[in-house]
């Protein structure tokens, strides 16, 4: 029984993180798949969302700004808005750049965001990061939540303590996972709707032939900024969800600019850019490969370590982790060459609209 629970909890956490990456991939799909904007600074926008959420929702503490203890939905909304605002400012300046230049510029922006998070110690606690970020559902069991308004209305503190005491300590996991999957589904529905709308068709037109779209009287720059901002907002949302999942974030390891950005790109390209189903499928697929390969490599190395007892396995383990990255990178190269349109290629809406 314990084993069964363990396996299903692993499955749930796989779905949770896969779902968060799916949100990131959907955000990138708006920018790249719809509008053809090469954003290589995904980690930067996710970091903005994560830090905004963390600073607004954590309890007051002396290490960083605020800890305003705002309600979680409000903090999530703020994370999206701030991420969108930053994308808007960047868009005003950089959106006209050609693809490679935009990639360079967005990599730079991600670096600048990381620099700010690292150096503005008073605001963000610098490289030491922020911890005790509330996680939805689990946060209900925290004292500051069950003693405040909506919950204190139903039961008193002792009653809640009793209630949470009798639940198994993983009770929140399925709920958190469910919330994220629901979020993925909602974003998916909205994006599908957007793609079929006149706005979405205009986006495709701009992506496919900018000159023609411009000649047809479409405001190319403004539409591109819109796609960039909406994508960044979705990424900010994913960042907020990621910070909830991790509970502890720091600027260097959590938001390793190249690794995170790279994984999301692999997900979108593998799944099929321009196709929201593909983005979601790619995210879960790549995340499962990524996460399962870690377990296989580690257990393989453990067996290896038992055979050869005078060997330091921990060293091999860290190195094998990097080797995994090499394999994922080569996988991307393979997909790029063999399936340039991804596993589920983009299907263009017909004129009938279905």
């Amino acid at each position, binding site marked *: 029984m314990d084993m069964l629970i363990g396996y299903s909890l692993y499955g749930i956490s796989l779905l949770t993180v896969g779902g968060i990456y799916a949100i990131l991939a959907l955000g990138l799909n708006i920018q790249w798949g719809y509008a053809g904007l090469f954003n290589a600074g995904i980690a930067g926008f996710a970091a903005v969302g994560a830090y905004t959420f963390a600073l607004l929702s954590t309890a007051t503490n002396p290490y960083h700004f605020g800890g305003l203890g705002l309600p979680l939905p409000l903090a999530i909304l703020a994370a999206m808005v701030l991420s969108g605002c930053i994308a808007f400012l960047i868009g005003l300046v*950089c959106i006209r750049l050609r693809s490679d230049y935009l990639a360079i*510029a967005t990599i730079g922006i991600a670096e600048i965001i990381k620099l700010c998070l690292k150096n503005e110690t008073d605001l963000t606690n610098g490289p030491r990061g922020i911890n005790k970020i509330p996680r939805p559902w689990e946060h209900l069991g925290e004292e500051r939540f069950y003693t405040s308004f909506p919950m204190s209305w139903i039961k008193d503190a002792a009653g809640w303590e009793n209630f949470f005491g009798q639940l198994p300590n993983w009770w929140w996991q399925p709920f958190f996972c469910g919330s994220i999957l629901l979020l993925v589904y909602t974003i998916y529905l909205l994006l599908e709707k957007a793609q079929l709308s006149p706005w979405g068709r205009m986006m495709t037109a701009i992506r496919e032939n900018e000159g023609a779209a411009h000649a047809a009287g479409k405001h190319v720059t403004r539409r591109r900024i819109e796609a960039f901002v909406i994508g960044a907002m979705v990424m900010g949302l994913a960042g907020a969800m990621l910070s909830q999942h991790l509970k502890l974030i720091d600027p260097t390891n959590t938001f390793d600019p190249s*690794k995170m950005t790279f994984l999301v790109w692999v997900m979108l390209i593998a799944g099929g850019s321009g196709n929201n189903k593909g983005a979601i499928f790619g995210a879960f697929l790549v995340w499962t490969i990524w996460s399962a390969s870690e377990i296989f490599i580690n257990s393989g190395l453990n067996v290896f370590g038992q055979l050869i007892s005078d060997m330091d396995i921990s060293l091999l383990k860290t190195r*094998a982790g990097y080797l995994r990255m090499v394999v994922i990178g080569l996988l*991307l190269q393979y997909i790029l060459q063999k399936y340039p349109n991804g596993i589920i290629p983009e299907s263009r809406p017909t004129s009938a609209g279905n």
Partner: protein
Amino acid sequence: MWQTFGFEFVNFYFIPGLVVGCIYALGAIGITLTFSILRFANFAHGEVMMIGAYFTWTAMTLAKNSFGLSIHPLFAAIPAIALAIGLFIFVDRYFYKPFRSAPTIRVVMASFGMMLVIRSFVQSVWGPNQLTFVPGIARPNETVKSFTNSFDIMILMPNKHFWIIAGTIMIMMALSWLLTKTKIGKGMRAVSDSPELAKVSGIDVEVIIQATWMVGGFCAVAAGVFLAMDLQMLETTMGFRMLLPMFAAAILGGIGRPFGAVIGGLVIGLAEELSVYPWFGNGPLLSPGYKTGVAFAIMIVMLVLRPSGLFKGRLF
């Protein structure tokens, strides 16, 4: 005047800026050449720089362990350059060439992937931790110190800085000869101007592309080794940290202008170091933590105001 301002300014801000600028310049040459000849931003360039420095370290360590020889990094760089050029040509053949006629974005993405592959490969072979490249503290060159001191302008420069600056000047001269006097160099300039026209005039574009990787690889490894000499250690992230300033230098000088890239590199290097000089009051003008942001700011301003760069580079 010299005692109060000059000494500190020249020794602690200007010379380090010049040295960093030389390293950026060498890296930017490769970026600007590949950008103009193959028409894409090669994100893996910084990583080749880094792996070149690791090859050099390995050559030095091998020589020391098996023959008891301690060889100069610049000597050990010779096999490293050969390996790095081989790597560049291998990567081009199997990962970039399939996309020659595809939209640029695909090959940019492939190079973005190669960046991670090469870095992770280095991390798994040499380990993720820092390695000591040249042990010990670099002392200022005594001859220069006493010579300049007799004119009341004491200049403190460790030998490694001389190697870096002199090496850069020599590579620059060789490159200038290559590009203006040899057939292959003229071919490179022709392909950079117009690949179609070059092709119909009988230039083998694939040969030119291989030559470009060779020149780019040579400069990249030189830059990587110089950087490792300057820092005296190796890190797997050093290539990525260099990437943005190098792009900035290439864009500042104008894409396809190798000498523009050199000027761009020097400007970016100096701007980074001088941005932390206390120009007004006592504190540094910019908090040192933001030093790496300077290159980026210059790049954005250039892209918006004058995307062809200072020396009328190409625009894609």
